[in-house]
């Protein structure tokens, strides 16, 4: 890697962003911060593709008849939406962007433990993404992101193998990222930074990483088996060839249910950071919040069977998975209560990250509470595979994970870029997203209980009113997601300088300049207090934002 010292006539500091401007210095960088930026650009691209598919779907669903696209096209749209959003946006969003950027900073290290592996995971991610894109360009995949057999392995006439190869490769990107985080958090903490002084963001990413390394390989081998059945016509999952389609569902959900926690655990970490900063309070019940992350990760591996309540598993199997699914609601509830209690007697400022963060708590609460409906096995029989499920998991994965990603992005944007965005635009878009989201997805709970099945491109006329409402909400939501793209880009050029700690937050990442220098800290920091020690923080002097 060639690095050219940057010095301008203005005497600007040399940062990880400006020490070299060559393309090579970006594409071959081993700096976790630059890799984070690479990820940020890539996932934004995949988000746009997934979002475009969603727009077309919501347009099609404005009327009960299938009139905008063909059934076949609609099926490819929802598959592409799911594959892009789940595997190429949500799963890498907070871990690969914010985690990559922040974990070394938060633990006071110069980089992640294995910088080359880190760069390799970005390349694997991009290669996987290109395969998925190739399947789209070649003509699309129509199996849904769940790839249920034997439809995916025998009957579908679309480019399943390309998409499956893409997800397989992308899985190794997740595994390497998780491995890097675990090792970094274990071995590279700064002197004095004990486990119980770690920011909760690190705890939650640690739990996420456990799922990455233990769940992803099972998905990988499952997809290999699907590919083999498809290419060689050997009956692994297709009963007409001697296989068992339910085995696929068990293997698939063994990864893909924990994958939901891959999306939401990092969000919980972001919320713990943001809510403490904007209420200037230590988190209420640090140990409970920390251990509930681990509890969610562990319990999350034991509940996959709740996706199979009507698939034909035994009654007792169903009951066991039902009770375990109720259990996993408890640590999530504990977190929500602790965040709310953190606000009590705080000094609360409703700045942009905080608005996103409170939006997360509200939407996640609804998503979590509707989780009780689907854990209730008798109700799930009625609502599974309907729009109720769509609404439920979008409340968790979009209302939860994307809200938190936005909260984190706005919270650490000044740290990552050194620039402040327009606060008013930020607040406005947070509000827009919250309103648009509820308009889009709340009607879908009602639709689902009414019995509208998911993945229908034409539907019974009595469902139209609620679908129109949902599509209207989606247009608000779409604008809400486009705005940040504009004003954040705008801030890069015209934003005010942020200074090292514009929000006066605790945490090691705020103790270095914004954007940080390549080696993160001038000298290794020493930690001598617990996380979120806002009550001891000096509120005047050099931590105030400079303009």
């Amino acid at each position, binding site marked *: 890697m060639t690095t050219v010292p940057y010095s301008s006539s203005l005497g600007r500091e040399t940062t990880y962003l400006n020490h070299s401007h060559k393309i090579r210095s970006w594409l071959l960088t081993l700096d976790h911060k630059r890799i984070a930026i690479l990820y940020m650009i890539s996932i934004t691209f995949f988000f746009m593709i997934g979002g475009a598919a969603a727009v077309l779907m919501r347009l099609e669903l404005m009327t009960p008849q299938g009139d905008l696209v063909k059934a076949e096209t609609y099926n490819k749209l929802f598959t592409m939406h799911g594959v892009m959003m789940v595997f190429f946006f949500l799963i890498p969003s907070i871990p690969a962007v914010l985690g990559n950027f922040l974990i070394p900073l938060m633990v006071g290290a110069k980089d992640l433990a294995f910088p080359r592996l880190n760069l390799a995971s970005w390349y694997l991610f991009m290669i996987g993404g290109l395969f998925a894109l190739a399947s789209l360009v070649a003509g699309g995949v129509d199996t849904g992101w769940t790839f249920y057999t034997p439809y995916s392995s025998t009957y579908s006439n679309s480019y399943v193998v390309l998409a499956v190869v893409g997800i397989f490769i992308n899985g190794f990107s997740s595994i390497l990222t998780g491995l890097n985080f675990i090792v970094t958090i274990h071995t590279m903490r700064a002197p004095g930074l004990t486990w119980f002084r770690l920011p909760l963001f690190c705890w939650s990413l640690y739990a996420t990483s456990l799922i990455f*390394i233990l769940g992803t390989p099972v998905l990988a081998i499952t997809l290999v088996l699907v590919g083999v059945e498809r290419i060689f016509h050997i009956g692994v999952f297709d009963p007409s060839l001697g296989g068992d389609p339910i085995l696929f569902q068990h293997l698939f959900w063994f990864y893909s249910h924990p994958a939901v926690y891959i999306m939401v655990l990092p969000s919980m970490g972001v919320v713990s950071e943001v809510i403490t900063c904007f209420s200037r309070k230590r988190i209420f019940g640090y140990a409970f919040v920390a251990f509930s992350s681990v509890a969610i990760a562990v319990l999350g591996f034991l509940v996959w069977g709740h996706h199979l309540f009507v698939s034909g598993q035994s009654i007792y199997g169903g009951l066991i998975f039902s009770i375990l699914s109720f259990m996993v609601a408890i640590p999530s509830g504990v977190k929500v209560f602790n965040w709310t209690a953190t606000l009590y007697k705080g000094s609360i400022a409703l700045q942009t990250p905080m608005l996103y963060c409170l939006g997360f708590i509200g939407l996640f609460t609804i998503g979590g509470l509707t989780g009780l409906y689907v854990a209730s096995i008798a109700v799930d029989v009625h609502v599974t595979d309907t729009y109720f499920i769509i609404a439920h998991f979008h409340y968790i994965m979009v209302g939860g994970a994307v809200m938190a990603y936005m909260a984190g992005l706005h919270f650490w944007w000044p740290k990552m870029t050194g620039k402040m965005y327009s606060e008013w635009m930020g607040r406005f878009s947070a509000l827009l997203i919250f309103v648009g989201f509820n308009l889009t997805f709340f009607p879908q709970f009602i639709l689902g209980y009414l019995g509208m099945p998911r993945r229908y491109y034409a539907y019974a006329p009595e469902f139209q009113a609620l679908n129109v409402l949902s599509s209207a909400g989606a247009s608000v939501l779409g604008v809400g997601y486009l705005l940040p793209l504009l004003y954040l880009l705008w801030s890069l050029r015209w934003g005010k300088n942020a200074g090292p700690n514009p929000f006066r937050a605790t945490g090691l990442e705020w103790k270095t300049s914004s954007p940080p220098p390549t080696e993160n800290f001038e000298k290794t920091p020493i930690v001598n207090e617990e996380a979120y020690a806002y009550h001891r923080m000096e509120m005047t002097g050099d931590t105030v934002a400079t303009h």
Partner: protein
Amino acid sequence: MTPSQPIDPHALDRHHVQGLAHHFDDMDQQHEAATLGMWAFLATEVLFFGGALAGYAVYRSRYGDAFAAASHHLYLWIGVINTAVLLTSSFMMALAVNAAKHGNRKKVVTFLILTILLGLAFLCIKGIEYYLDYREHLVPGSIFEANWHEMFPHIDGAHPGSMMFLRQVQLFLMFYYILTGIHAVHMIVGISVMIVLTVKAARGRYTAEYNSPIDMAGLYWHFVDVVWIFLLPLLYMVQH
């Protein structure tokens, strides 16, 4: 920090201790990170093979007869010979790691080369076995379907149940190829890594203080060995 300072941290402290990467404080930290990283990776590997073995277990419990019948057609003696080869290779690796701990460059190189040669021997034998399997038409798909009566003369093709039996035999064969194939890929990766390590070791890059790469390659190689120890009885010795 001022702009006049040298910027590249790699340039600053790359070689102040041989083998210590710039972002670690000391050798102990680096070694701890490498070890933990390798164990975490092996945990991933266990789940990777575990997923395939779970599928294997489901079908074996269901189609025991067909799996046993198919398994009897594999060359158990080749499998046993290969087990011996691989175990010896693993032993050589252990000797290499031990030599690295004592900073004995010559021994490290010798034992690494022996490990590699035995690994290659395993792959060659495996290749010959695949060829023999192919000659016996033990390949799922059209080759098998055209020639199955040679292998299973007692099966009546007109009997309605026989089609399912033959499908199940092919399912076993598919697991045989997938599991041994993935295992072989792991061997190839391991051998490639060890070739690089041997060259570096010959150039004196590893010392009694810095030898984690050899240590890690050892962990990996033993893991690949252990996987084979599981595959041998599961694939070659199915009884019903």
